[in-house]
């Protein structure tokens, strides 16, 4: 069902990812890497870059980042549904935490063995007294192919991936 050109493009993208860090949208994970490595435990400690990043402060022409207070993080882990093509649909949401105080979290309930998961994080913070979030983090595909965080189609197919031992 997936167009051949799309599969070819995806394979090229994967090859490129093997040679350099894959582009991401949002916060980049520090562990595991975004593109599907096997984690070291059924209770992995997931880590990601903190918000705001130096690049956010540098690009903050409106000045809103400087007004951000009380930054925490939301974390989601989904079971993967492959659905017969190379893209990964998020299936059941099996783990969810809001308000994680640091840019890392050790999963508190054991994941299933030898299973593929998708995961994502986003900052949650106060801005001028209101709760705000940014987009969920995910892989960034060439030309985005409609999988960008704000595409008019949900759920996204580009969340970060890992596999349990």
């Amino acid at each position, binding site marked *: 069902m997936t167009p051949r050109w799309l599969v070819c493009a995806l394979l090229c993208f994967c090859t490129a990812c093997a040679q350099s860090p894959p582009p991401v*949208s*949002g916060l980049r994970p520090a562990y595991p890497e975004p593109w599907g490595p096997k984690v070291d435990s059924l209770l992995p400690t997931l880590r990601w870059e903190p918000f705001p990043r130096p*690049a956010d402060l540098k*690009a903050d022409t409106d000045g809103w980042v400087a007004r951000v207070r009380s930054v925490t993080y939301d974390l989601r882990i989904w079971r993967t549904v492959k*659905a*017969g093509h190379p893209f990964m649909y998020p299936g059941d949401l099996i783990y969810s935490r809001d308000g994680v105080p640091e840019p890392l979290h050790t999963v508190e309930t054991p994941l299933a063995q030898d299973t593929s998961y998708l995961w994502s994080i986003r900052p949650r913070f106060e801005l001028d007294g209101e*709760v705000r979030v*940014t987009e969920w983090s995910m892989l960034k595909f060439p030309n985005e192919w409609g999988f960008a965080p704000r595409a008019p*189609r949900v759920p996204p197919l580009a969340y970060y991936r890992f596999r349990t031992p």
Partner: protein
Amino acid sequence: MGAAYTITGAVALGGGYGGVAGILLSPVGAVVGSVVGAFTADPAAIVVQREETARQILTNRALQEALRDRLAAAGRVQTGGKFVVLADDRGPAARDTQVGYAALAQEGIGTVLEVRVDNVHLEGGGIDPPLALRMTARTRIVRTAGDLELYASSLTYSGGEQHTLEEWVARDGELLRRELERADAILAEKIVDEVFLLVLFPARSGDK
């Protein structure tokens, strides 16, 4: 092919679009759901029966109300705001109808978020194909003073679960009902994010 059903609803809010209590207008009107491309080698009578079962599940579920209620719940949890569901007759009466909300300003309601399921169907192709659920919801934010539309958007849920029509409707449609709940949850969360919470990163990761 299969039949249809649709929903219309509305919500109101505070937060980014200014003020007051959030309000949800109850759905009115007809929705259209269907099975698309479900060609099969099974006898026609069985296929018709399965499609009728799927249609009944969609029809009986009150799709508009289900999404509206999910949206109100998600809005309350995620924003701490007050969401009020408006009475049925305050929302659009049909799919292509636009109603005015100016009268609500007199009741202290500043903004209305209208949400409407425009389409829901199972989609696939081929002979006895795996089918996936698609559901499209439109949202519209209207400032009641002056009936000024501030925002309009459309989101489509495209699920990863694929099953044959027989599998979707088995056990009184257990899989289909579950997938509909999932679609509601994902659409509601995304709408709340987009309308109330989201701020875009000033820097794209690739810019670093």
